């Protein structure tokens, strides 16, 4: 009886995690690996691992930060493996993530432009800069937490963040091609 109650609680917790953090985790992974199918698989893997270690997590709090750390490690592990696939460019991305057929053509064109800009931005960031900015954006992690995650001193982490932001500024604000 108690087990059944605990299982129900666990399932509810799992459902809450996916509902509340699934989008952020998937978005982080999509920006890191830039393949929707891989991002989906990794997202599920993140939740699987988080579920397995849920007892430990309950003592720590901040579920999203916890999951983003798992996601970051999975994305890095995948990046270290010999690449047998090709990351999508903007056209490939559109092909795999087709726009909603019910959407208006103007909206579709706008989305294509946005995707292209995002792809260009991510391409210009170094791997570490991308990790720092994405962990900050999706998890609102403090710079100290990010430094611990990427295994860098705090000042190096801040430098990565600053250089990444300057790259984005050149691209988006100053419109440097």
């Amino acid at each position, binding site marked *: 009886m108690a087990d059944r109650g605990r299982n129900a609680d666990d399932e509810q917790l799992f459902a809450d995690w996916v509902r509340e953090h699934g989008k952020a985790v998937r978005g982080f992974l999509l920006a890191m690996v830039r393949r929707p199918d891989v991002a989906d698989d990794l997202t*599920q893997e993140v*939740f699987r691992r988080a579920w397995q270690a849920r007892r430990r997590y309950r003592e720590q709090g901040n579920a999203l930060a916890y999951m983003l750390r798992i996601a970051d490690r999975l994305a890095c592990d995948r990046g270290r493996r010999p690449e047998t696939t090709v990351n999508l460019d903007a056209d490939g991305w559109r092909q795999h993530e087709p726009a909603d057929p019910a959407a208006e053509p103007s909206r579709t064109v706008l989305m294509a432009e946005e995707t292209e800009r995002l792809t260009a931005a991510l391409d210009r960031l170094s791997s570490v800069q991308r990790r720092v900015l994405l962990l900050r954006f999706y998890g609102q992690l403090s710079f100290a937490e990010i430094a611990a995650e990427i295994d860098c001193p*705090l000042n190096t982490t*801040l430098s990565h963040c600053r250089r990444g*932001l300057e790259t*984005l500024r050149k691209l*988006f604000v100053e419109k440097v091609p």
Partner: protein
Amino acid sequence: MSDDLERMQRSLERATAAKDAPQADLDPQTASLREAWLTFGQLLEAAQPATELPLDRWMTTPPARKRRWLLPVAAVLAASLLIGVVTTWMLRATNRPQGPGPAPEQTVATSNHVAAPTPEQPTAAPAVNGSQWDDSLDEQLAQAGRQVAYAQQDQFPGADAFGLVQYRIEQVRAEVQADKL
């Protein structure tokens, strides 16, 4: 932490704060970084697919319900099997008759006329580890040995004295009939 580092951290925290956290009185450099940050955030959000995560599919296959118990159970079964085989083998090895005492078959084969074991012969092998000699089996073997001996006597009539006399008489009769004498 040095002042420069602290200032840079504070500036970057303000530049990269969440979009709904209003940041007033930003210096021009931080403001331009924040503008780039907000644009980046908009693009990331726009790239999110509209489809929901397959929560139902994930819930029907709860991730923690992997069959972790299979390996230990298989190991325990294999160990039990091994222990059983070894134990059986050791029991058989210790129950096997030891020492120079003749096996029952040997007793039968070496004594054609033996009806029963002589008193000098060991009637039973010493019991090892408390196991008893099977007397009924011994008796059956002795009886079988006697029957074999009788059968042999039927096939070779000269095997005893009376049979030899009868055999010679038959030979003489045959020679008379053949006019050899």
